[in-house]
């Protein structure tokens, strides 16, 4: 870990105050998120739990600079994400955030290696694409197209793509949602390895209670509000998880 990182541990990486997001639904507005106060620190492995409709995806989208809140403040270090315009949010995503999607979102006509290169092409000090694939244990499958990979392999390519730029934070939206348990474990192993070896802050959102056990912090969302926020002093390795 870089010197001075310990100081940064004190200052939150993400800080949200009174965060809310409303979507128009015909005449009315539906609040997906309301009055959320939250501080995430560097080096945490956060599991955001909640059933569908609890607002967890909305929260992740706002933290990742994909969406803007309707009310409240949210900061990433010294970036004001609520006030950032499109270009600033794009720059923020490019420089700091890695995304892992539930449905992998690989480009179908690019190989595994090329999908990773998609990110290293525009990152400032990325690792080599093959290095990233190595980290998720897919060096041998680098020249395969997504259609030639299993779901778990595709998700690991997506993780390699997310980490290749050495992001400060890795945001994962139901990364195991479309996978069976053994395959899901492999994916979670890959995420944990990245967290440990690169020191990347990881936020996973899931409705899968079992995954909560591997986080250093567990936040539960319900009805657009934070229902529970607790540290987990004894995170379990993915191998011990079952669902």
């Amino acid at each position, binding site marked *: 870990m870089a010197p001075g990182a310990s100081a940064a541990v004190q200052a939150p990486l993400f800080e949200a105050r009174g965060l809310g997001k409303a979507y128009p639904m015909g005449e009315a507005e539906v609040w997906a998120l309301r009055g959320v106060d939250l501080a995430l620190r560097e080096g945490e492995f956060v599991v955001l739990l909640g059933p569908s409709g609890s607002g967890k995806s909305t929260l992740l989208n706002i933290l990742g600079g994909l969406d803007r809140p309707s009310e409240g403040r949210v900061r990433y270090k010294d970036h004001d994400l609520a006030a950032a315009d499109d270009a600033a949010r*794009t720059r923020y995503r*490019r420089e700091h*955030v890695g*995304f892992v999607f539930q449905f992998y979102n690989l480009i179908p006509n690019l190989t595994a290696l090329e999908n990773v*290169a*998609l990110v290293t*092409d*525009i990152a400032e000090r990325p690792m080599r694409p093959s290095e990233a694939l190595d980290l998720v244990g897919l060096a041998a499958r680098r020249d395969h197209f997504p259609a030639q990979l299993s779901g778990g392999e595709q998700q690991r390519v997506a993780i390699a793509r997310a980490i290749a730029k050495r992001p400060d934070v890795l945001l994962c*939206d139901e990364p195991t949602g479309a996978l069976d348990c053994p395959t899901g474990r492999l994916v979670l192993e890959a995420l944990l390895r990245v967290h440990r070896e690169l020191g990347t802050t990881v936020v996973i959102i899931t409705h899968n209670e079992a995954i909560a056990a591997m986080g250093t912090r567990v936040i539960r969302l319900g009805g657009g509000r934070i229902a529970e926020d607790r540290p987990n002093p004894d995170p379990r390795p993915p191998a011990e998880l079952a669902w």
Partner: protein
Amino acid sequence: MRALQRKLLRDLAQTWGQALSIALVVASGVAVLLASLSTQDALRRAQEGFYREARFAQVFAELKQAPQALRARLETVPGAAQVETRLSARILLDLPGFPEPISGQLLSLGPAGQPRLNRLHLVAGHFPEPGRAEEVVVNEAFAEAHGLRPGDGLAALINGRRETLRIAGTALSPEFIYAIRPQDPIPDNRRFGVVWMSAPAAAAALDLAGSFNSVAMTLAPGAPERPALEALDRILAPYGGLGAYGRDQQRSHRFVSDELAQQRVMALSIPTIFLGVAAFLLHMVVARMVAAQREIIATLKALGYADGPVARHYLAYVTLVVLAGVGLGALFGHWLGLRMSLLYLRYFRFPSLDYHLDPALVALAALLYLGSAALAVSGRLRAVAALEPAEAMRPPAPARMGPGRFDRGPWMKLLAPAGRLALRGLLRRPWQAALTTLGIGFAMAVVILGLFWWDGVDWLLRSQFHLAERGDAVVTLDRPVAAGDLPEFARMPGVLAAEGQRLAAVRLSSGPRERLVPLIGLPKDGRLRRLLDADGAPVRLPAAGLVLSQAVAERLAVRPGDPVWVEPLEQARPPQLARVGAVVADWVGGGAYGDLGEVNRLLGEGPVINAAALQLETPEPRALQDALRRLPRVAGITFRAAVVRGFRRTTAEHIWVFVSFLVGFASVIAVGVVYNSVRIAFAERAWELASLRVLGFTRREVGTLLFGELAAEVLLALPAGLVLGYGLGALAMRVIRTEAFVIPFILAPATAATAALVVLASALASALLIQRRIRRLDLVAVLKTRE
């Protein structure tokens, strides 16, 4: 190479059929644009170069006869730079083995062979040697048509005397780039020849020693033409001046210029259609691509790609397709232009034609097509930019689909299930369907644009040579004879009937406007030559007053009842006042007509004629040809059958090339539009179709669903194409019509049917290409993908 560039290449590879069909549409448009503009440019440069090299005159005048001493006065004409006086006469040529007398134009050469103005470009042989009166130079086109070479003999009837000439050389002349006999609509090099003779020999043959009867003149740079024309007319009036005219009324110059103008129209009209179709297809394909790659776009943005680069990624696809089309089009256009230029060289006799493709033109075409393509897809690119990256995190929403008002109409019950689905498919995306229909309609319009010339030419031939000129031959005399001599013609071998005519060159004027036109006097109740209006209905000659061609009436700005001044040019006679009795919208001619007696009166002469229309037993009787050949006063004979034959042959050669290319281009459009629409419909509904296959539908049934929509679009496109073709054809005809010659806009049912068949065949070919995809539809894989 960057990953996004790789994706672009793979996108291209995966949609190669669509990309290629669009590139071909672009290529077709670019090819026509480049070929037309380059050909026009080459012709223009050849014309300018030849005019400069040959010192082509700017002002011309014919007269009866004037002494050489008058020449000094001609040099005082305001603006005159160089003056050439010469001898000119209409003669008859006689070649063994060719049945008819051939019309000829005799011109005298300069003292040293080469004239000072309108210099000849010798192709073979040499100028006549001094002292060898029988040696002449003939125009190359005529020599070629009869296989004549220097050294060959040639008989001629000059000034009523039979002369034996020898061809010393063949040459090109700026006055006869387009060598055409007066009154003919198109050139016939077998029946018209130009003969240049040494000045002394010509003077002797025409009995005009020490005189001239033709003037050519160049003007000082910037000198206006009109004062020169007026001065010339004043000086020549006492000598039987026939009216000075500028280049704009010089026959060859006018035809070449008209053709250049037509090339310009072609260069502007047809590529515009392709431009529109290509833009539409690119819009369609990019819209489909953006819709299908919604998640990919959102993902790229979530990964940190800014809106600009993502939108540019799709623009790059368009750019590559268009550039490929421009490249292909440049190659093809170069070839096509070269071919067109060579074809023109057969009619337009230039010493050289330097055809080349200007790279700046290619760049211009590329900019034009890139610009319109970018404009066409800009809406989709804005949608790309506006797409929220959060979209990548959401599962795709199911397609919105609900029954519309029209959908529930009682007519739905009348349709078979496949028809109902097809109709619903059309209604689900009415704009797309309308544009597809319009695109296919344009393909049909382009076929019509290629084919309808035939109908016009057909109508023209029928109305001119079967309804208007019902005689089988027209004999023109070199000077008027008494109308009482007519029976002499009627008694000639093979002649059933003869009608006298009086043809004279006159200047019509009304206020400041004036026009040199042929005035034609016809017998009151003549049967062999009638006046017809544009619908082919006969027009009765008024007892007093003239009938004007619409083109002439328009240029003089006169209407029936208005007075016009008629100034005979052959006789020194003050202008006579006549009334416009009627205006006819005829297709060929551009002249004035009157009752024979009225014309004689206007010309200040007794009852004389100088032409006779003949009705014959057989179309081209040999005995009559021989008899006419021996008649000294005959200036020319025109057999209707020969003119029609020549007309058909020339237009056939000329039009076929364009027709075949236009039909080819139209097929490219039709295939491009149909293939892309079906391909996109297939991609959008592959999942649905595969599901139906899983449920037990046969390939044929699935195909019916897919092609039902296409069939409806194609069927709707046929009437649309007819309307578009009609409109574009009428527009093209309006733009390219000339004073002397208007091809009527006629669209025969057979042409419309042919155009429809071309479109149907193209649609069928595209459908067969897609049919192969249905056969290969991978049921399992399609059901797995979530598109």
